[in-house]
């Protein structure tokens, strides 16, 4: 898709000495599973790719270089850029130490969906509102809606607004009704006992691998309460109350700070619908505190301020 463009950008930036390292994507064991790739020399640029399977958000890797010299270039999609904005707002990354190579993103494909539509899929190209999948099983033309990641179906900010350079023309957002609000509403329509049963079942699958936390741009604390030995907030025991505590507290810790990037849900190996937790909190923050839905981190966090006339429900 934009592989040549990203290689050219990496070569140029590294040759000119504008940056000392470049974070992009490289082909994985199969082309639908690229991995994050760090390069430091212009001649390594050949390794990079940028295609419709480059879903991983590279923003959080910037924390690995916070104490190292030099500017880091990073390839960011619109959603990834929100992650960077989060890190900037939290003062974890300095803007002048990052060079953002922005990708106006036409949407990333869900490799499971793609593989279900065309077993052995190796490549995808966009044609209008469709994607053409090719692979060992031949070629198949599918509607974008069938194969994009869920998050891309409702993406409002496909183009990073804070990029130092863009790989292509800006892409407009998709004005799609917010299906996740409906998902939250469906849960709210259940009885309390049904919700309890629903979440107990979901959380029971959790293996506590911490991938959701580790990939989350809002979970950027230098040390995390879940790792603390003294006091020990949470042991590794995976019984019901511990799972509930883990997911409740993690969601609450990013309440008002979640950038809606869906990375937690993408990385979860057990497919726990984590965004249903985050979306509930996003909605409540907006309704309770009369805030507009924001797609970039706010200057002051919703839970870092108050209004004397906030709703009074406690007597």
């Amino acid at each position: 898709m934009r592989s040549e463009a990203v290689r050219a950008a990496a070569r140029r930036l590294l040759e000119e000495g504008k940056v000392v390292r470049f974070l992009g994507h490289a082909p994985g064991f199969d082309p639908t599973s690229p991995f994050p790739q760090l390069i430091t020399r212009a001649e390594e640029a050949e390794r990079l790719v940028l295609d419709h399977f480059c879903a991983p958000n590279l923003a959080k890797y910037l924390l690995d270089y916070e104490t190292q010299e030099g500017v880091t270039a990073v390839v960011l999609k619109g959603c990834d850029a929100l992650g960077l904005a989060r890190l900037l707002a939290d003062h974890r990354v300095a803007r002048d130490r990052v060079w953002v190579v922005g990708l106006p993103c036409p949407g990333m494909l869900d490799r499971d969906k793609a593989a279900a539509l065309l077993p052995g899929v190796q490549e995808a190209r966009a044609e209008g509102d469709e994607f053409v999948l090719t692979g060992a099983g031949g070629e198949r033309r599918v509607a974008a809606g069938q194969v994009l990641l869920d998050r891309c179906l409702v993406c409002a900010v496909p183009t990073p607004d804070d990029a130092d350079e863009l790989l292509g023309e800006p892409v407009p957002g998709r004005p799609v009704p917010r299906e996740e609000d409906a998902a939250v509403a469906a849960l709210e329509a259940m009885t309390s006992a049904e919700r309890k049963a629903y979440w107990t079942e979901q959380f029971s699958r959790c293996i506590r691998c911490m991938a959701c936390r580790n990939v989350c741009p809002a979970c950027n604390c230098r040390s995390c309460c879940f790792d603390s030995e003294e006091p020990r907030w949470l042991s590794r025991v995976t019984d019901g109350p511990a799972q509930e505590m883990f997911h409740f507290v993690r969601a609450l810790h990013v309440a008002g700070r979640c950038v809606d990037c869906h990375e937690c849900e993408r990385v979860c190996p057990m497919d726990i619908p984590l965004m249903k937790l985050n979306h509930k909190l996003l909605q409540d923050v907006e309704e309770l505190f009369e805030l507009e839905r924001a797609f970039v981190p706010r200057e002051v966090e919703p839970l870092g301020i108050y209004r004397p006339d906030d709703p009074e429900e406690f007597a």
Partner: protein
Amino acid sequence: MSVAEREPKIVGFLCNWCSYAGADLAGTSRTSYPTSVRVIRVPCSGRVNPQFVLRAFQLGADGVLVAGCHPGDCHYSTGNYFTRRRFLLVKRFLDYLGIDQRRFRLRWISASEGPKFAETIREMTEELRQLGPRDAAAVEAHAE
């Protein structure tokens, strides 16, 4: 002991300046209230991180009370406004996860409101007794 007879356990996070003094007043004025509450004194209700509440539930509390000065009366001027914001979310989120909202309360109790403290504990205890243990199966397993 059967589940029905079990005295509910409430963990109460009380702010040092108002609610703890209120609880103290209830004691010194010999107002009687159930012995179901275990009090943890905090400098301000704003100190109460939601994870304290969840940790209490995880360790087997049937109900959690957070109590602080009335909005506008905070010893630190504004701490309890933050508390209110935070727990508006927590309250809804508890419900969203299917944890009965009646198991959690945030109350504004001033130093002079000893009777209100006693009444809060009475009310909560009664309600929790009717609700039964948070997770009956888990309680039984623990009792074994």
